[in-house]
């Protein structure tokens, strides 16, 4: 935590003025949504042997039961150490999401048959496109940021136009422009390089602003000290300013990488066999759309989690100087 207060406030959820209205609120919402009539509600009533209750009463019983489970759960979790609280809450929410998917009555047999192909072809292609685009976008962003901070009118103009255009146009349009537009000029370009170019240019434009803000966050005194020691502008940037700016740059850049990972699915419009394209086409053959969509989503999520972990590790690295 940035600021650790030295005052102990009882956790909000342990105060009657908070938890009584909160639980009542949950009860009312569940009732209002007719939770007793839902699939979950029917199963709860069935397992309690109360399937014959009137709908209104059954609805209330189910809502009350779920409310009590939630209340009890909160009570237990609050007694755990902080770190465990995070893990338990995380796992519970993940379990709920998986249960939600499970309720779709998915054909796991179909997923088993297709997942290998989805991973081998789709995941690999998604990873390839994203990884290459991330590298190129970072280079473009660094160049764009330096251009935006320079006193060179031409560089400034190019960088300004670049960020304006590629942040302003829909990514889908950019992909079409490169894939279908460039051949008009006589340059026929494959779908994969076209997708990579569009993603790199688009995300490079967003990240230009992130890099610029990061570089600008470093005080003028750092420049002065470095230049007074005789370091050249380029060494000052790479050795003094950028390493410090990384602390500011990395969290939003991690965001961009995760967003790009998923936006790479947009290149499927030009027929690249990446994850989302395969999920759509494979599902079509046997009318098993949801199976493939959920499988692809889970793969995206796992990839995002990996990126989150990588980001946390890099942040730790650049924060080591400020940790006492």
């Amino acid at each position, binding site marked *: 935590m940035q600021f650790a207060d030295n005052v102990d406030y009882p956790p909000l959820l342990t105060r009657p003025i908070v938890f009584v209205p909160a639980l009542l609120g949950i009860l009312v919402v569940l009732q209002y949504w007719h939770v007793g009539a839902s699939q979950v509600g029917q199963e709860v009533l069935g397992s309690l042997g109360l399937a014959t209750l009137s709908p209104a009463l059954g609805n209330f019983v189910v809502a009350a039961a779920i409310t009590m489970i939630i209340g009890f759960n909160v009570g237990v979790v609050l007694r755990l150490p902080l770190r465990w609280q995070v893990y338990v809450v995380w796992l519970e929410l993940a379990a709920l999401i998986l249960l939600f998917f499970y309720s779709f009555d998915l054909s796991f047999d179909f997923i088993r048959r297709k997942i290998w192909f989805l991973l081998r072809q789709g995941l690999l292609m998604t990873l390839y496109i994203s990884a290459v685009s991330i590298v190129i976008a970072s280079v473009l962003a660094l160049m764009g940021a330096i251009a935006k901070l320079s006193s060179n009118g031409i560089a400034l103009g190019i960088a300004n136009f670049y960020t304006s255009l590629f942040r302003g146009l829909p990514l889908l349009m950019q992909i079409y422009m490169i894939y279908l537009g460039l051949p008009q000029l006589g340059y026929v370009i494959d779908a994969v390089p076209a997708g990579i170019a569009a993603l790199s240019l688009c995300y490079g434009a967003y990240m230009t602003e992130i890099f610029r803000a990061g570089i600008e966050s470093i*005080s003028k*005194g*750092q420049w*002065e*000290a*470095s*230049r*007074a*020691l*005789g*370091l*050249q502008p380029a*060494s000052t940037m790479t*050795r*003094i300013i950028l*390493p*410090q700016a990384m602390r500011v740059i990395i969290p939003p850049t991690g965001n961009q990488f995760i967003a790009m990972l998923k936006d790479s699915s947009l290149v499927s419009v030009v027929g690249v066999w990446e994850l989302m394209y395969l999920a759509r086409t494979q599902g079509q053959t046997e009318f098993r759309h949801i199976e493939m969509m959920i499988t692809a989503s889970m793969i995206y999520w796992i990839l995002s989690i990996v990126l989150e972990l990588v980001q946390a590790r890099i942040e730790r690295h*650049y924060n080591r*100087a*400020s940790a*006492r």
Partner: protein
Amino acid sequence: MIGRNRNPHAGEPQPLAGAPAVEIRGLGKWFGAFKVLDGIDLLIGRGERLVICGPSGSGKSTLIRSINGLEGFQEGEVLVDGIRLTRESKTVQAVRRRVGMVFQQFNLFPHLTVLENCSIALRLVQGMAAKDADERSLHYLRKVHIPEQAGKFASQLSGGQQQRVAVARALAMEPDIMLFDEPTSSLDPEMVKEVLDTMVQLAGEGMTMAVVTHEMGFARQVADRVIFMDRGKIVEQATPQAFFSNPQAERARAFLQQILH
């Protein structure tokens, strides 16, 4: 420099033997419509210890920052070791290599250790091998009495220690002239002395120093000459004895009364 066939300072202007350390003639600078330096003439001799004081906004920081080209100027000229300071990179680099600077806010590089703070310019500017650069840095850290902090980061040091690292960092480049821009103004009172002691020691070794400070004790003990500035002009210059006992200018008298109570 073994293994290097490239002189990193090729093409730089050469110093003039026998020239004064710093020579400033008719220096003038505007911030917009405000004239922050107005016709400054100043000669700093080799080995001279100069203290510059004056009320806030009088242009004293701007003056010493124009000696190593951190501030530009519109009128007059600045010569360091006989090298005329222009806006050309080669010239500015040649001047900065001869001038060390210590800032009010220390400006240590927070992502580098104390040792790396001192050695980075040795490696990147003077092209020294890492081992030699570390050795020289340690030598100067010993001089400011904190070799044991070499592996720490700036955030782990007290203000006084940080400023002494900043002094060592500047000294490691073995400059001819040291500029101090209010080196003790952002320190806690009990840390002022350790930094001043380091500066007194440095003065005793014959370093040419230009110090912007309000530490009148330091000025009395060390300075060869005190300069009083007001509204961009040098209003008075004298030996410390003469300046403190009998300031000539009315504004200098008023200023001394304020800071000496």
